[in-house]
């Protein structure tokens, strides 16, 4: 709940706005030249508001702790980073850092900061804010989820202030994707948060119940009002540092209203009814429902093609010696045989999955990198069509045979029977598992689909290892291979099929380790691409995960919204929120 009365908060806002204008008009230009960023899109006009649905209440508005999608979406609108990934081109571009240079050894980055930039409360931004922000993100006691990303070569990044408008970052080893690290690391206002940080109360700072005038950011919008369980209103940041090609101050919109609409179906209905202006994160089935009356209702739907999410089936290849799971350990003899995994892969009807699960709005996958990841997908990866005959051959060569009634048995005469675990909250993955169950029944395998609630499933996958196979999906936030390190390196925390490896369990995992670590420190794109292509080929060959399909990113927006350029990287629709305007 807000503790400040609306009158007081409104008046505070008013004075802040005046302060901003005064700074901008009089004092500021005399001292430092303002280096505004000029955007390319066709100019729109100012005014108006849009409504967007949010699945749940944000847990926090503190960028150092935001983990959930709702918090991240709001924080994205209220904050800015030093170097930004353009969601459309998937390349980095300047943001609060107007330029940067890299030392020859690739270990030192020097960033020149934009001058004359102000936080949304009118206070100036400079290198001290950058130093403070990284101090927070890197502080062990703060436990920021961002900290892991800033550990390069086992050592945290060192930050050094050169002068008020340049900062230097030292890395322990060359890091190919270093520029991309800065995306999604909002710069915090030192003047507002330092006291809390010094007092050790930083973890309570910027909770959702704080009054709006306690917040300030460098993003296009700032908090106006938060009514828990109902809505969050953001208003235009008058001090924002971007202008359009005609020199008009951005953002155009006066307000964004986030309405709390807890389920996907309800969001679709609200959008269809015209209550919200933009819709993202919805299923292909609902796309078909909305598509029918898009002309009549004045909205347009966008199918952006495959995103970065890849769904896959994988078998439990964990070392179960320390666990008391003899039944599963016995079945691991099958799962560990690459011919068994290849046979399963060969029997799966990926086209059927695309059609039945995603209404055709997806792409079948044979490797972990989706075609949506334009820079990194290995296009030469083979796409073998579904073949039960090849699957049977592979099984036969691996010592399997069939009983009279068609049941598949292994060399010891045990019938092949296992279960596939999915999360009951994910309808698409449940459907995939059901289709795979039917596909594998044609090979004589007796497969059960077991759905558990998400946390129970994760507990089995990561801790107890009490499962046989599972259907999961992953979507890294960024297109760069470094964001997938944790999955592919054998000691990684999400190396799902075989966790807690002290040294690579198989020669091909050792090879993946080598390639992934090599690409991490290779600065040349072509050479990195070749290394990552090899990783994709090994994965497609060894099938530790059997990739299934990648759903298209689907977005809808009212026709009246200008400059709407949805992208396949998160946040799909609002990534250029400062440029959106009402036609």
């Amino acid at each position, binding site marked *: 709940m807000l503790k400040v009365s609306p009158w007081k908060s409104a008046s505070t806002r008013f004075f802040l706005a005046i302060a901003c204008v005064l700074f901008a008009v009089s004092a500021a230009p005399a001292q430092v030249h303002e280096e505004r960023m000029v955007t390319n899109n066709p100019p729109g006009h100012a005014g108006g508001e849009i409504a967007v649905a949010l699945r749940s209440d944000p847990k926090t508005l503190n960028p150092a702790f935001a983990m959930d999608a709702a918090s991240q979406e709001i924080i994205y609108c209220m904050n800015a980073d030093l170097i930004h990934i353009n969601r459309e081109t998937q390349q980095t571009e300047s943001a609060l850092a107007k330029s940067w240079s890299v030392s020859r050894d690739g270990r030192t980055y020097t960033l020149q900061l934009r001058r004359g930039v102000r936080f949304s409360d009118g206070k100036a931004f400079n290198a001290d804010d950058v130093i403070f922000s990284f101090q927070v993100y890197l502080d062990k006691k703060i436990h920021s989820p961002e900290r892991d990303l800033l550990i390069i070569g086992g050592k945290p990044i060192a930050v050094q202030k050169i002068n008020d408008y340049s900062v230097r970052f030292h890395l322990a080893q060359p890091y190919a994707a270093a520029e991309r690290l800065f995306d999604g690391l909002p710069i915090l206002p030192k003047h507002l948060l330092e006291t809390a940080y010094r007092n050790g109360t930083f973890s309570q700072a910027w909770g959702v119940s704080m009054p709006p005038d306690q917040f300030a950011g460098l993003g296009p919008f700032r908090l106006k009002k938060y009514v828990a369980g109902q809505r969050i209103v953001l208003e235009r940041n008058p001090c924002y540092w971007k202008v359009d090609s005609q020199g008009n101050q951005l953002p155009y919109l006066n307000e964004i209203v986030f309405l709390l609409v807890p389920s996907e179906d309800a969001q679709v*209905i609200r959008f269809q009814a015209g209550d919200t202006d933009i819709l993202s994160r919805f299923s292909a089935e609902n796309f078909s429902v909305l598509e029918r009356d898009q002309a009549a209702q004045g909205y347009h739907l966008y199918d952006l093609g495959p995103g970065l999410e890849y769904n896959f089936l994988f078998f439990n290849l964990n070392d179960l010696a320390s666990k008391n799971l003899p039944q599963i350990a016995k079945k691991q003899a099958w799962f560990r045989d690459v011919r068994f995994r290849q046979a399963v892969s060969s029997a799966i009807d990926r086209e059927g999955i695309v*059609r039945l699960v995603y209404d055709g709005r997806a792409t079948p996958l044979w490797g972990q990198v989706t075609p949506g990841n334009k820079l990194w997908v290995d296009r030469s990866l083979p796409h073998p069509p579904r073949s039960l005959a090849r699957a049977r051959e592979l099984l036969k060569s691996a010592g399997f045979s069939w009983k009279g009634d068609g049941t598949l048995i292994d060399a010891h005469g045990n019938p092949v029977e296992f279960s596939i675990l999915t999360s009951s909250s994910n309808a698409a993955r449940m459907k995939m598992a059901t289709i795979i169950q039917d596909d594998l029944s044609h090979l004589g395998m007796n497969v059960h689909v077991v759905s558990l609630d998400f946390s129970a499933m994760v507990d089995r996958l990561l801790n107890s290892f009490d499962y046989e196979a599972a259907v999961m999906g992953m979507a890294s936030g960024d297109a760069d291979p470094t964001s997938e390190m944790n999955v592919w390196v054998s000691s990684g925390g999400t190396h799902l099929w075989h966790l807690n490896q002290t040294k690579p369990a198989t020669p091909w995992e050792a090879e993946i380790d080598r390639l992934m670590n090599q690409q991490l420190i290779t600065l040349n794109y072509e050479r990195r691409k070749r290394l990552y292509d090899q990783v994709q080929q090994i994965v497609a060959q060894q099938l530790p995960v059997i990739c299934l399909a990648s759903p298209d990113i689907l977005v809808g927006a009212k026709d009246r919204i200008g400059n709407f350029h949805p992208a396949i990287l998160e946040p799909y629709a609002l990534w250029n929120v400062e440029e959106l305007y009402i036609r």
Partner: protein
Amino acid sequence: MKHQHKLWAAVVLLAGIHGVILFAGFFAPYSFSAQDRGLPFAPPTRIHFVDAQGKFHARPFVYGLQDDPNVAGSYSVDSKRMYSLHFFVQGAPYKVAGLFSSRVHLYGVPAPGRIFLLGTDAYGRDQFSRFLYGGQISLAAGLIAAGLSVLLGIIAGALAGFYGGWIDDVLMRGGELFLALPWLYLLFAVRAALPLHIAQWQVFLLLVTVIGLIGWARPARLIRGAVLSGKERNFVVAARAFGASDLYLLRRHVLPQTYAIVLTQMTLLIPQYILAEVTLTFLGLGVGEPMPSWGSLLTALQRYYILSSYWWMFLPALLLIPVFLAYYVAGDALQERLKSVPL
């Protein structure tokens, strides 16, 4: 006299329904798990007598379906492909009541033609076949669970009513405790504690046992009441005076007086328990894919796109109405009869 007719009509209808469900394999044209991946969400197949040229056919026929090029995800009729309807055709093998196997189905059209009386689901599976097979699970669950409840109710009610005293207190207070249990959460907990994959029949047994165990308290109370008044009647007192044992008295004189209550309770509990199975499957606690049950057929209706796009997914829900109605009419008529026949 009128409720007599009502009773018989309901009993005949129920016998018919159970017969069809028991021989689901015969009445269903396809297996419950057969997927036709080219035809997800196909609408109910129309049966024709007159073809596109206006010619009348004595043998009804259906048209083949093709993807509608104009509307994604929908189908149009391909009037060049006609498949005539045949009866007693050979098809997928099935087992009747788990005993003898057969391949004969009541009706069907020659492949590659398809006949879906209630349309298909998201996997292109025949909804009508799934409805019939699903009935086997749901009706069996209802019948067995109701039987279990009533059996427990008889034992507890008879003991409590006949002996009274502390036995009565313990049993009846225990029953109240059972009524007050948050059994849904109990079920979630039970399911979570079970091993990851248990055979379908084990899930089924679990479902039935839990549903049955939970509901014993109400019939027990009613039977206790009947036993309380029944044991005071003159012929019972007389038999006791002649030295009849407790067991003999209960068996020969007291319990026969409660049969009408037992029967009514059964007919009222069965539909309740079918609904309980529906609810549990709806919540993901029932038998898993690909096995259908009436509950799993209704689960699909949770989604907005199904509600708004595929009207035939409602048909199983509509078909359930006469089933429940028949049970309630039978229960009602039995109760009327009970009132008019003096104890």
